[in-house]
């Protein structure tokens, strides 16, 4: 029996609004921006998800999220691209990056969480920046708790439609619309600081908390 016209219309509307959810199962996820940390890239299946949100959870002190950010920045610069960093607490370490790497960075220094979210929204709508990083690691917890979950879904819609890559660095799992969620769980100490960034990065440990199943289209697996 043919489907009633309203249901057909509804399906078409949903397919238009959520194209990826209604697309046929892809053989694999689209390859994204490599971060430059082999263990993390392999965990993510090549890099950050193109047209999706990746959440990097760095809980506690010395988790290593700043190391990941700098590795990503160097990798992006190496590939001749550029990225925008929305720095939620103005904590980016300029001294740790080379001049030619910094030249490919748009840095938005925010003081509050809502400022950072608005700035991210503007950048995602701009469509000129292929990769946006929202760093909320040092933002106060009470501000982070006030973020409405609808904001993340709005960001998800924007990156999906514009083909942007969004990386959100958070102190705890909070991005409901994240396609990928990885926890960096290192405990960096003074000895590793003295050893240099290469040693620090080699010692970083990651754990996948959420991922789209390969070839499964829209199915998700939760862990942790």
């Amino acid at each position, binding site marked *: 029996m043919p489907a009633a016209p309203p249901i057909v219309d509804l399906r078409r509307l949903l397919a238009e609004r959520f194209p990826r959810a209604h697309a046929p199962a892809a053989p694999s996820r689209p390859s994204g921006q490599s971060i430059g940390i082999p263990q993390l890239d392999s965990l993510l299946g090549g890099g950050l998800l193109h047209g999706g949100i990746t959440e990097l959870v760095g809980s506690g002190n010395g988790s290593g999220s700043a190391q990941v950010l700098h590795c990503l920045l160097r990798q992006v610069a190496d590939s001749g691209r550029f990225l925008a960093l929305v720095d939620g607490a103005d904590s980016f370490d300029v001294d740790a990056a080379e001049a030619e790497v*910094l030249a490919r960075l748009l840095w938005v220094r*925010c003081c509050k969480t809502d400022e950072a979210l608005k700035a991210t929204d503007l950048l995602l709508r701009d469509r000129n920046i292929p990769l946006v990083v929202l760093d909320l690691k040092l933002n106060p917890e009470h501000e982070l708790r006030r973020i409405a979950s609808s904001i993340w879904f709005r960001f998800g819609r924007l990156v999906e439609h514009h083909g942007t890559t969004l990386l959100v660095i958070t102190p705890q799992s909070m991005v409901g619309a994240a396609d990928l969620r990885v926890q960096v769980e290192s405990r960096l100490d003074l000895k590793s600081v003295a050893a240099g960034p290469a040693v620090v990065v080699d010692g970083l440990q990651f754990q996948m908390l959420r991922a789209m199943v390969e070839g499964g289209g829209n199915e998700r697996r939760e862990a942790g």
Partner: protein
Amino acid sequence: MFAVLYLPDFGLQAVLRHEPAVAGKPVALVDPGHATPRVFLMTAAARVGGVEMGQTAVQAMARCREVVIRHRSLKQETAATEAVLQVAFGFSPHLELTGPGTITLDLRGLAELQDTASDGASPNPTPRLAAWAQRLQTVIRGLGLQVRIGTGPTPTVARHAARWSDGIELVTDAPAFIASLPVAALEPSVHVASILQQWGVRTVGELLALGQAELADRLGLEAFGLFAAASAGALRPLHLVRPVECFEESLELEFPVETLEPLLFLLRRFTGQIGCRLEACGFVAETLHLTLRLESGAVLERRLRIPQPTRAPDALFGMLHTHLESVRTDAPIVAVGLAADPARPEQRQFSLFEAALRDPNQFQETLARLSALVGADRVGTPQRDASHRPDAFKLMPPDFENAPPVGTVRAVELLRPTPQRRLRPAVRTTVERERPAAQGVSIHARPVALRGPLASGTITRSLGPWCSSGHWWEPEAWSREEWDVETQRHQVVRLACRNGEWTVEAIMD
């Protein structure tokens, strides 16, 4: 072939072209240069309302209550003339400013209007000419001006055609056209006009039929002038002018503006007209100059650089809109001006793998919005200062397309510092130094404990000190001592001591 652009009631049009709100209303124009300003131009609605030429403003308002009185503005007339000249220059390079609101174009040699038939036959050029005139009229209407266009074999015929047409008049049979004109087209003196009226001469054809010599015997030398004005074959050289490459629109506001909306309405018109003029001349705008004169007498000037020069009105307006959203003035605005620096459009071939901005103008607008959100000094590309001072940098406007190639100046990996998370501003803390057994506290003694909002406790490991100083020859000399420390709770922080005051400058993450 010549064409004449005639803008009827030019002074009135020049004043009203930025005021579409009064279109259709009775408007009278008075000249403030006279001791008693009198009406010398008016709209049809004012004429219907009873306003007459030569009346004072008070008399005109007594006759027609709704009449809007406007002052003549030579500045606006000059601006309108420049605008029309610039647009016309895009249609023919040979222009003459024949009079206020009258421009003559020499169409001879224009490839667009040339005979393209190869068989030598003379095809009818009228359709091409009509299309050409129609396009010109449309563009000038885009400037907010009504224009009549006439073409003819001589400038005189074209001028008559323009003045006595309703829109576009293409004269192919010049003698017949001239003969059909009323005698007033030759602009005789009042005395001669009354004589001709008494004779029953109504048209130029009837006048010419009287004969030049006979008419001169009766009317004197003016008859020669009338015959010259009625000549269908007399050519004269044009006094060619070249439009200035200045694209500016301005308006003195009738009432001070206090909100953004009316200002944006005006700027929308300005950008549209400037874009139209730039397009006619084959230019794009590379910089916008916005001038706002305040009621207090202060002048607010802003220069907006356009990253990807354009003449698209929407892009230009978008930049102004974004910028004005963050502008606050101390007093209402009484005059607005907008000028564009012209530039030739850049032709660029992108390479296959080049990562370039999709829409640089959109990007510039986003940057402006970000600046409005977080502050202009908090958005940009960081550039380290030429100093050894930690965390010394400035933010520059992003220029991704001219970024240096990667890998050319990359530091040796061993020299690269481990990234940390900076605390801006640094957090004050209390540090206890190690007490040597012998003579008191050494100035570089190792910190053994710290107490502060971010980290506190006994220090289990420490690296340092790293002492640095700079600018000792200037008043803003600096000197500092740094330590990387790890507390018993495994917190790794960077401590800095300046003038005996300790701060946590960064945390390891």
